C-alpha cells in the first residue's frame, strides 16, 4: 500500500459514471490514484493478478454484466488477502434489500449515486477521507448508508 496517495478503484460498467467519477476526483484536491474497471470480471482479474498494489478503497457498482458487484463483494470478503480493502457500494438503487445484503456481506459503506455533480464530489471526498477504522467490520448499520 502506498502512503503518499490514496489508491482508489472503481468497477462500473457505465461509461458516464466512470467519467463523473474520475472527473470528480480530478477536481478534488486530494492526492489519489484512480483506476476504473468495466465490470466485475475485469476487476477480479486485476485483484487476483500477482504483484499488484492493493487499493485503499474499492467502489463497487452493483448492477454489472458478467459479474455483479454483489458477487465481487462476496469473493473479496472470502479472501483474507483483501481484508484491508475498504469496500464502498456505489449504486443507483438504494433498496432496503440491497443495503441489507451488502451490509451482511461485509461492505463498509453504501453510497447512492447522487444526481448532482457537486454532491458527488462531496460524497467522494467524504468517503476517501473517512476514518476507516470506524467503518471497518461493518459493526454499525446506522452509518452504513451514507446520508447527505
Amino acid at each position, binding site marked *: 500500500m502506498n502512503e503518499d496517495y490514496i489508491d482508489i478503484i472503481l468497477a462500473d460498467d457505465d461509461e*458516464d459514471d466512470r467519467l*463523473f467519477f474520475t472527473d470528480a476526483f480530478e477536481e478534488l484536491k486530494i492526492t489519489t490514484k484512480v483506476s476504473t474497471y468495466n465490470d466485475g470480471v475485469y476487476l477480479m482479474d486485476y485483484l487476483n493478478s500477482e504483484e499488484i498494489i492493493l487499493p485503499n478503497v474499492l467502489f463497487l457498482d452493483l448492477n454489472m454484466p458478467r459479474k455483479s458487484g454483489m458477487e465481487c463483494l462476496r469473493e473479496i470478503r472470502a479472501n483474507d488477502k483483501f481484508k484491508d480493502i475498504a469496500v464502498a457500494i456505489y449504486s*443507483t438503487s438504494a433498496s432496503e434489500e440491497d443495503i441489507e445484503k451488502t451490509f451482511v456481506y461485509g461492505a463498509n459503506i453504501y453510497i447512492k449515486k447522487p444526481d*448532482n455533480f*457537486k454532491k458527488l464530489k462531496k460524497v467522494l471526498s467524504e468517503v476517501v477521507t473517512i476514518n476507516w477504522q470506524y467503518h471497518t467490520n461493518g459493526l454499525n448499520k446506522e452509518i452504513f448508508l451514507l446520508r447527505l
Partner: protein
Amino acid sequence: MPSRIYKAPWFVKAVFIVSFFIIFFVAGVTYKNMSKLSESFDLIEHKYELGVELEQMISYLKDAETGQRGFIITQDSTYLEPYFSGRENINNSFAELKQLTKDNEEQIKFLKKLNILIDNRLANFEEVERFVLKKKNNIDSPNLIPIFLEGKQLMDDIRDKIKIMIELQNKRLEARQEAYGNNLELTPIFLYLVLLLSLLLMIGAYYKIISNLKKLKQTNKQLEIFKESANQSEIVSKYGNWIWNIEEDTFIFSDNLYRLLGEEPQSFKASAANFIQFVHPEDKEKLRKQVEMMMEEENLPYVYYRVIHKNGNIRHLKSYGKTLVNSEGEKRLLGTTTDITDEIENFVKLEQRNFELERNNKELSAFNHVASHDLQEPLRKIQTFLSRLEDKEENNLSESGLKYMSRIKSAAARMRLLIDDLLQFSRTNKADKVFETSNIYLLLEAAKQDLAEVISEENAVIVADTFPAMNVIPFQIQQLFVNLIGNSLKYKAKDRSPEIKITYEKVMSSKEAVLINAKANTYHKIIFKDNGIGFDNEYAEKIFILFNRLHNRQEYSGTGIGLSICKKIVENHQGYIFADGQPSIGATFIIYLPFL
C-alpha cells in the same frame, strides 16, 4: 288405559300373550270342572248301584229266610228253592259289593263286618236246617227258639249295617256335593268374566292394529314423498346412492346412479363388476384397490375416479361409503357417489385464472420496479450533466438558454419525484410484510428526521401524543408518517407556518360511525390535523386515488402518489384512513389501525 301403554310397540304382543293364556286357562278350568262333574255323576251312580245291591242282598236274605220258614212250617222241600238260590245270589251280590266298595276303606271295613254277619246268618240258616232235618217236624222244640232268635238278631244287625253303609255313602256324596257345589256354581260367572276380559283385550288389540296400520299407511305415504324428493335431489345435485350388502355381495343402485353413468335407470344388474366397466381404464386399478380396502376396513374414504359414458363423455365422480350394521347383524355399506365434473372444471379454471393473475401481478410488480429503477439511471445522468453544465458553462449561455436549462432542470426534478414515488408505491405492494411490535414514537421521530430539512425550512411545529406499542410493519408506518407530514408541509397556508397536531386514542369499533363494517373490535385511532390550505370535502375520497391531484402543478408539486401510498399502507394493516378538509383552514387525516 293410559295412552302411553296403548301406544307402546309391545302392546299388541302383550295383549295376544295375555289372551292366549286366558284362553288356555279357561280351557283348563273348563276341563277340570267337566271332569269333576262327570266324577260326581259317577259317584251318584255308584251310590245308587251300591244301594240297589245292598237292598238286593237284604232281599235275598229275606227270600232265604222266608223259604226256610216256609219249609219249616210245611216240611215241603220246594220252599227251600228260594233259600238255595238266595244263598247263591247272596254270594254273587257280595262279590258285586266288594267290587263297588273297593275304593273306600270305611265301606270295606263295614263290608267285612257285613260279611261276617252274613256268614253267621247263613251258618244260622244251616243250623236251623240241620235242626229241622234231624228232628223231623219238631218245630216246637225249645231248642229251636234260641237258634231262631239268634237268626233274627243277626238279621237285624245286617239291616243296621246296611243302613249305615247306605247312609255313609249318602254322606260321602253330600260332602262331595258341598265341596264342589260352590265351585260349580261360580265357574260359569268366572268363565264369562274371564272371556269378557279377553274379548276386551282383543278389541283393544284390534284397534291398536288398525291404528298402527293407518300410521303405517301414512308413514308409507310420507316415505313415498320422501323417496320422490330424494330422487329429485339426486338428479339436481348429481349424486346417486348405493347399498352394498357385504356378506351376500349384492348391490342396490339408485336410479340416478345409473344416470351418472349415462345409462337408463335400472338398465343393468347392480354389481361391482358392472359398475367398474364404466370406470376410466387409468382409474380402474385405483378403484379396485379402494374396493379391496373397503372389504377390509368397511369404511371408504373419499375416492375420486373418472367414468366414461357410452357416448365417450368423461365424468369425474367422487364416492364415499360408510358401514352400517342393522339389528339382524347384517353388514351393509351405504354409499354416495357424486358427479363433481363441474366442480373440477371450475376448480381448474379458477386455478388457471389464479395462476394468470399471480403471474400478471408479479410481472406488473417487476415491471414497476425495473421501470422506475432503470429509469433512474438515465435521469440521474441527465441531472448530473445538467449540474456540470450549470457549473461550467453558465456564463456562456444566453438568457433564453439559461431559461431552457432551468426548465429542463425542473422537468428532470419532477421526473425524479415521480420515479421515487412510484418506486415507493411498488414497494408497499410487496408481499413480505413483517409485523413487529414497534415503538411508534421512534417511527415518528425517524419520519421527522427524514423530513428534517423541510421542517426546519418551514419552521413547522409538530406536536404528538404518546403512543402505545403497536404491531405494525415498521418501515411502512414510518413511510406513512413521512407522507402525511410531507403532505401537510407541501400544502401549507402561505400566511402562517405549518402546525401539525398528532393525537392518539384507543377506540371501540362499535362506537365509531365510520367503522360499522370493521372486522376488529378495538382500533388505534391516530389523527393528523394541520393548519394548511385544506380542501373541499367533495374530494375527501378522491385524494387517495393514484395520480389524483387537486392542484395545478405550477402551484403545488405533487405526484398524486403520496396519499395513495398512505391508503395502501393502512390497508396493508387492515386499517382505514379518512380525510376531512376545510378549505383554507386545514386538513385532518384519521387513521384506524386494528389491535393485532
